[in-house]
């Protein structure tokens, strides 16, 4: 009896991993060219942007919040980087022109993303605007700002140095994948081994009890949304660098892919329960699904239907398992 329960618990614990392996097995069997080193690297590089966004989203969702603005912040940060690098800034009042190096442009872009996330946090903590609404507004604002900044057209021709992040390898591994791995590692460490990480779980698990235990709930949330903004900017950097182009529609709809990855990874939307490792699996599941369906030449419209069904299935299984207790 005990043994059966143990197996069951193990099954529940690794359900995302099992789902991923099952999917890889199925696609390897029926999609020619899926099971190859090249394709695996391709998948890893393709999921890198969603990975950045989803790690930030995991932190936000663990506190019991949501961030709909990650796609738009990605676009604006990328556009800021590209614009500064390509055109610099003119300050007519002082008859001044400021040019940017690639590093300067990147850092400024990351700052912009962080600030927008910080602003989300301010709205949520000080004005008590529900996260859904505050970040929905930011999603629209940042998208509008991107269009203003780019004038509605793509900014291209950003040079070799800037392209390094999105196209080159570092010790045989694509720089994008290295970046993601570093972010994932840092997030796992922070969540598991620091007070800040513990407090994120505590707030999502019971905000009132956390407040009564002396936690500065507002400060922690503010940090979480700032990090989510910064990681969106990293996503913006990768996209822009890879395509050598910042477009006003970059990252459109990415917030949904990232929420889907977090949910598939077993993180509870009500907060307090979940893990970055789960999210990594969630991101990979979506990546593998995309790759396999493309190789199988499933029409794009059907791909969406199938992806939606996978999300439903993942959450339904999770619900059934937690309900049993």
């Amino acid at each position, binding site marked *: 009896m005990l043994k059966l329960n143990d197996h069951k618990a193990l099954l529940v614990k690794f359900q995302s991993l099992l789902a991923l392996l099952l999917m890889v097995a199925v696609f390897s069997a029926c999609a020619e060219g899926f099971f190859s080193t090249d394709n695996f690297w391709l998948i890893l590089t393709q999921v890198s942007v969603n990975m950045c966004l989803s790690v930030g989203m995991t932190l936000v969702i663990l506190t019991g919040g949501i961030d709909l603005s990650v796609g738009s912040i990605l676009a604006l940060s990328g556009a800021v980087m590209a614009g500064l690098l390509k055109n610099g800034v003119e300050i007519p009042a002082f008859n001044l022109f400021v040019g940017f190096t690639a590093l300067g442009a990147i850092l400024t872009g990351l700052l912009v993303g962080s600030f927008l996330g910080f602003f989300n946090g301010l709205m949520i903590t000080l004005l008590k605007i529900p996260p859904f609404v505050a970040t929905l507004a930011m999603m629209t604002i940042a998208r509008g700002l991107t269009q203003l900044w780019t004038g509605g057209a793509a900014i291209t021709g950003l040079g070799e140095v800037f392209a390094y992040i999105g196209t080159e390898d570092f010790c045989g591994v694509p720089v994008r994948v290295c970046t993601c791995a570093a972010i994932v590692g840092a997030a796992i460490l922070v969540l598991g081994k620091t*007070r800040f990480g513990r407090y994120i779980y505590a707030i999502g*698990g*019971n905000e009132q009890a956390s407040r*009564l235990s002396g936690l500065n709930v507002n400060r922690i949330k503010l940090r979480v949304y700032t990090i989510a903004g910064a990681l969106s900017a990293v996503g913006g950097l990768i996209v822009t660098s890879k395509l050598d182009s910042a477009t006003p529609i970059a990252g459109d709809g990415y917030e949904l892919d990232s929420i889907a990855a977090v949910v598939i990874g077993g993180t509870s939307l009500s907060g307090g329960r979940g893990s970055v490792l789960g999210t990594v699996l969630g991101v990979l599941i979506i990546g593998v699904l995309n790759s396999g369906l493309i190789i199988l030449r499933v029409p794009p419209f059907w791909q969406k239907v199938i992806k939606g069904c996978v999300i439903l299935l993942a959450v339904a299984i999770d619900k059934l398992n937690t309900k049993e207790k």
Partner: protein
Amino acid sequence: MSTSEIDKVVLRAGNISKAFGGIKALDDVSLEICAGKVNAIVGENGAGKSTLMKILSGVYGDYKGQIVLDEGAIVFSGPAEAQDSGIAIIHQELNLIPHLSVAENVFLGREFISRAGLIDYRAMRRETAKILQRLDLDIDPRVEVSGLRVGQQQIVEIAHALSLDARILIMDEPTSAISDREIEVLFGLIRSLTAQGVAVVYITHKLDELFQIADTVTVLRDGKLVGSRDIDEVTHDDIVRMMVGRDMEDFFVKAEVAKPEVVFAVRDVCLSDTRLAGDYVVDHVGFEVKAGEVLGLFGLMGAGRTELLETIFGLHPEQSSGDIFLQGRQVEIDSPSDAINFGIAFVTEDRKAEGLIPEMSVAASISLASLEQTERFGFLSSRLENGLARDYVGRLRIKTPSVRQKVENLSGGNQQKVVIAKWLATDPRVLLLDEPTRGIDVNAKNEIYRLISDLAGAGMAIVMVSSELPEIMAIADRIIVLSEGRQTAEFTSSQATEESIMKAAIPQGQAV
């Protein structure tokens, strides 16, 4: 309705018992409700009044005993069926939907539908107006409920009950949130309802009201029936005696260890009422606690006990005022983290909502409020954390298979010990306890008493809120009684009697 139906017993509850997880909330209680009368029910907090009313109104289905309605035994499958049988309940917390109109609220779920399949607002307004007229409430059925005063909202609830043709109307503490003038209106209304043959069941702890409005009074104590009397047969003091007079069993008695040094003092603590401008929930309360002393705070529901502790702990910095002194030095507390830094700990009344994070392990729960001591070079050390947790699991005898167990899987008593451990881990000098033994079994209770006694013995200053008289009399060295936010009495443990405490706790009607 003919006069012959008045005085008739409409509902008879026989030998009702109900337990929650081994704790008896009601034990063999019998009760008769008469038509055309105000049947009052009184008792301390936890006496079983609400449980009994929930059984009568169909909320709880699994109880022992039987309910006879109009000579026929009946078992309600749910509140809706009780309503259909003519039993309506008005809870202390009103159940109205604020942004709907009066008429929409009165007929919620039973809207009139016109032949076109749409809601017939005109008919609903007409019917509502008729009922409101019967209740002497001059408001337009179209106004939003949120714009009404609490007293008026209550009358809307009564209108709702009447629209259901309720013959038995249960009112739970209906005067707790309304003004004196509104109380007069309400009493007038109750009298006219009883004259029309409605049986009113009236729950209160304001004894003065009984003599104004009640016909009979039933006293419950510790889930048992003490007795039912006609109001003319009893005096105020008789009722108090019935409410408290219990056999003192061999109760844990704390040794007195207070040292002369005053550790903690508060002066003029006030908390203003957010609902009623100019009113106070906590009204100029002050006390001091010596090292090793347990100060008991007693009060009935709504006396402001919990609010007093919350204010001290920095939960209401915007609405509160007052001075707090720690070892003679005045301190400023604007948040729980301030309070914790000054060495104050607060074990809250509601474990689930305010004390614990159910998904967390025992170790994580115990270390939550003092996580910095499990840190090494900026990172949490599970070795230090588990060590801290094991230390408290041993000291407080917390029964858990391991410190990695989730707290939601522990029993109530052990969960409470985890909460206390969390606070002891912050190394406090002052411990605020709000109903520390609520909802836990007798053995765990005794262990908690022993723990409180030990902590006091080690020199901690302890403030304990309790609504259980025997408990507070056994554990506290001194007892302060709160009533409607004000401090009404102070006793040393040797002076205090259950009757004197209860007398000070019962609100005095301002009209008398």
